[in-house]
């Protein structure tokens, strides 16, 4: 979900079309319009006219820019699509990009076009760069699948070639640097090389764009040449290229970019890309390229999904207001997305666009009428019952993070290398304090004890909640079970005190149990017992070992029990 910055006056001029005067709009109006693009206004600076807009739809990269947002609103207002002849009409490209053999191993695809007649303004340049970054970063997976370069067209001699070179032997002055360096050096010292070099990791040969005068344009997807690839305010002839690993995505990105430039008044000149082998779009691909397929959708499907009769006319109008190309059939519509979109996978996508184009407020809510019976799961019922009993026994309920550290859950408890100490651990650890799931409840309660020595005693605490117990026999390598833990802490806290509580609990849960002595390192020897029902161990009770208390820095005797409720009801 990208958040972008746009300028209100720039936005207004794009709304009315590049060649007419601005009509200022209110912020409230902007907010309402943003519903059409699943956008939310996050901030507004009245002095600079900057608007911060968050776009939700990760399948609509065409909306992650000022031009795209304005376009969607403009179409709705004007009730018709802006024509983009370079996408829909057959043209004979003048310029050519040649893809040399071997590119398929590294970064196979490229799409490119020229744009003339739009003189770049400072706000326009900021938008171009922002769009370039957002598309490459989010849609292009941090430049891995798609990256974009913009150049000063007059400096380039066609045809341009897209080819592989040895990184140690090729050199130019990259953007942001003063001196000529080899591509290998750029990977090591240039900030962009450091950031994105991983994409080319392991490649002996790396991609470059070179023009017919043997001038290097760029080192995709890392950095442009400073001489050719630094667009400045006032430039009015641009060359745009997109390289990447997924051909439809590369083409779509160029379609979006060229449409944006056209909206700003540029004339787009397509370029022909000549591959050495046939691609899914052929051996010679003219870009930008219309990749749309049409889809026939029965009107009843839309009406059924929306729960409202609309009729073919309303549906057609709604979709046209949203940029679709629509032809009405008998009881159905044949639809085509605009060429800068590629997110039509299922009829339901069109259904949503109908609803958005009409506005959600046009649909009256209806209550689902069918009768269903509500209820809680068995384990939740037992857990709730146990919680009620614990409250009655005078215990304060606690609620803790489940994600914690092995030190808390095992180390402090002296059970590191034992059967009790095994936990589900995180692979991509961010901080050690959140690196494994709890396997029992007592440490969660000792956490409170350690922090609460100044709260008046006695402390009687309990928590009922989920734990994860490693279990190789289980599909996901662990069992999630619901456990009840309880502790009592005060100057004369004693085994029999917590035992009485456990006993009362079992009585009211209607279960027979017995205790069997067990040497458990977390507890004082001879003062700990396994809780058994029908010879099955479902928990532990005892006096916490003083060394455990020392490790937690608790200066008060603590007695505890840990009871597995899932196993108690035989749902393990």
């Amino acid at each position, binding site marked *: *979900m990208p958040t972008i910055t746009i300028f209100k006056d720039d936005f207004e001029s794009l709304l009315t079309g590049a060649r007419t005067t601005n009509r200022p709009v209110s912020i409230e109006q902007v907010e309402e319009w943003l*519903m059409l693009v*699943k956008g939310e206004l996050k901030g507004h600076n009245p002095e600079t006219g900057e608007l911060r807009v968050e776009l*939700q739809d990760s399948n609509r990269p065409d909306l992650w820019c000022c031009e795209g947002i304005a376009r969607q609103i403009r179409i709705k207002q004007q009730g018709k699509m802006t024509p983009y002849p370079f996408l829909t009409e057959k043209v004979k490209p003048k310029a050519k990009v040649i893809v040399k053999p071997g590119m398929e191993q590294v970064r196979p695809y490229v799409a490119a076009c020229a744009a003339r007649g739009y003189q770049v303004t400072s706000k326009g340049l900021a938008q171009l760069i922002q769009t370039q970054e957002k598309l490459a970063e989010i849609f292009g*997976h941090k430049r891995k699948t798609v990256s974009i370069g913009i150049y000063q067209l007059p400096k380039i001699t066609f045809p341009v070639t897209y080819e592989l070179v040895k990184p140690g032997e090729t050199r130019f002055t990259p953007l942001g640097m003063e001196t000529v360096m080899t591509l290998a050096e750029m990977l090591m010292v240039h900030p962009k090389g450091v950031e994105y070099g991983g994409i080319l990791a392991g490649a002996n040969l790396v991609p470059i764009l070179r023009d017919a005068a043997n001038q290097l344009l760029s080192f995709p997807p890392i950095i442009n040449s400073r001489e050719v690839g630094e667009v400045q305010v006032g430039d009015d002839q641009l060359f745009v290229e997109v390289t990447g690993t997924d051909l439809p995505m590369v083409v779509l990105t160029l379609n979006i970019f060229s449409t944006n430039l056209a909206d700003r008044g540029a004339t787009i000149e397509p370029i022909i890309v000549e591959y050495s082998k046939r691609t899914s779009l052929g051996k010679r691909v003219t870009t930008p390229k219309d990749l749309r397929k049409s889809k026939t959708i029965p009107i009843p499907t839309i009406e059924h*999904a929306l*729960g*409202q009769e609309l009729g073919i006319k309303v549906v057609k109008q709604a979709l046209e207001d949203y940029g679709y190309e629509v032809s009405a059939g008998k009881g159905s519509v044949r639809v085509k997305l605009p060429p800068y979109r590629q997110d039509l*996978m*299922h009829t*339901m996508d069109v*259904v*949503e666009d109908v*609803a*958005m184009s009409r506005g*959600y*407020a046009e*649909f*009256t*809510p*209806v*209550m*689902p*009428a069918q*009768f*269903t*019976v*509500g*209820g*809680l799961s068995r384990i*939740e019922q037992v857990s709730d019952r146990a*919680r009620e009993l*614990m*409250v009655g026994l005078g215990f*304060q*309920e*606690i*609620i*803790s*993070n*489940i*994600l914690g550290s092995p030190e808390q859950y095992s180390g402090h408890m002296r059970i590191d290398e034992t059967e009790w100490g095994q936990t*589900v651990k*995180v*692979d991509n650890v961010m901080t050690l304090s*959140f690196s494994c*799931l709890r396997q029992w409840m007592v440490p969660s309660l000792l*956490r*409170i004890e*350690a*922090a609460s020595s100044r*709260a*008046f005693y006695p402390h*009687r605490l309990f928590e009922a909640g*989920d734990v994860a117990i490693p279990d190789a026999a289980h599909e*996901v*390598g*662990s*069992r*999630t079970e619901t456990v009840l833990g309880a502790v009592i802490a005060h100057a004369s806290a004693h085994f029999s005190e917590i035992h009485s509580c456990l006993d009362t609990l079992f009585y009211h849960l209607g279960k027979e149990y017995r205790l069997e002595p067990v040497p458990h390192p977390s507890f004082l020897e001879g003062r700990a017992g396994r809780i058994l029902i029908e010879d099955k161990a479902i928990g532990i009770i005892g006096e916490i070992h003083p060394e455990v208390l020392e490790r937690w820095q608790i200066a008060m005797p603590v007695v505890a029990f840990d009871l597995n409720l899932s196993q108690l009801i035989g749902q393990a």
Partner: protein
Amino acid sequence: MEISNIIDSLHPLEIKVLMTLSARQPAVALKSEELAIAAELEPSQLSMAVEWLLAKALIEIQAEIVTPVVSLTKIGEEYYQTAAPIERILASARDAAGTGKRLTIGDLQTQPGLDPSDVSKAVGRLKKEGVLLIIQGGCIETTGRSSPTAEALRPLLEEVHESSRELASFSPERQQLIEDYSVKRGNAKEPFRVDERVTRSFVLSPSGTSAVEQLMNQGLVEEVSQLSPELLKDGSWRQKRFRKYTISLRAPRVGTGKKHPYREFLDTVKAKLVSMGFQEMRGALVETEFWNMDALFMPQFHPARDIHDVYFVKQPTHAAMADESILSKVGNVHENGGKTGSSGWGYAFDLQRAKRLVLRSQGTAVSARTLAASPNIPGKYFSIARCFRYDQVDATHATDFFQVEGIVLGEDINFRTLLGLLNLFAHEVAQAKEVKFLPAYFPFTEPSVELHVRHPRLGWMELGGAGLFRPEVTVPLGVTAPVIAWGLGLDRMAMVALGIHDIRELFTDNLELIRTTRGLF
């Protein structure tokens, strides 16, 4: 206060003192010590009772007598244990006379425990009494006469050591001696100290007299502070009076058993959902990427599946899934839409990736499992599931948190009934009368809606997100009926209800805070 009320609140100690004072006929004042003895009270008990009675104006101070009292200082105790300087010097001089040794003042000053001022004071006094002579060269000689001071001092030390005494009880000569050897300003090194002791004597006040009369009239009713089983058993409580308490005092604190306020909030949500016909679902903390994402039609290249968004499990890394048929069904849908009428994402689905184990990152994983387990149609389900996100923890981001999510299945489910359900949530969960529906995006629903409500206390807020599950989600899991997927974002409501501003406080380790937080639901 009415005298009868005063009487009812009298402490037994106070009654004892009053009775003792009234027992002296004709009325005489009693000094503290006399009163203590007569009333058979410890001095500390007496002084408490006297202060209380004075405050209630039941007794009066008749006189305050200031008496000088003699006691030993620390040095006096030392002199008593060993000897006073005058005694030691006399002994040394006699000793020297016996052996014929020369004894000078200098010799005396070097004796341990004697300092020059002690020596000069003692020698001066002995010389005056004619006991010692100072001859040439500072030598000391005894005259053989006895020293009245030295002889009087010893018994005086012994007597005062025994107990402090009033100065007036000594003879004038001894009083003079005490005066000479007592601590004064500028001379702290003396054996005696004279302090002024204030002795108060008390009589009953007029209201004290009438209180005593009433007490006598009440007869021999004994006052007790506590009802006991014995008193109840033999009925003797009828002969007792129960002292009245001062009930306006602050009550002592008590440790209570109670639910955690956040859990209590979630319990109310749970109860609401059950009352609306929702059945609870449970799921596991550790999930496969398959159920957590693939089954929800989130493509394997989706940014939210990145290692910077989800926690991966270290060991085992992958699930051992016995039945892979569901995996390939869902995989087909990702690749080409399968039988759902979708074009799919058009990428090569990685079965191995689907088995990768993660910590559940969204409650919708529980819904996906329910869809695959032949749910009721019509059916309503919910879960309050703990989820984990790879986020830096701060005031608004927790590493693990609860998600309240669910599904509604039925042939009558469509976009408008979806809005109807959200209306119901707005009314029931947030008591909101005004709602707004905004377009939203979730990878697994189409159309998608964000529910905004005007909360009675919070104003406009986002309450939840929902949508119709994409057929790409439901069809491969075996469900052909339309399904609503919904989720409620309740943390903000919970935080306001609990009066906290930092999401980390929901799981606080501060017991005092947990004990004192009141939930206002």
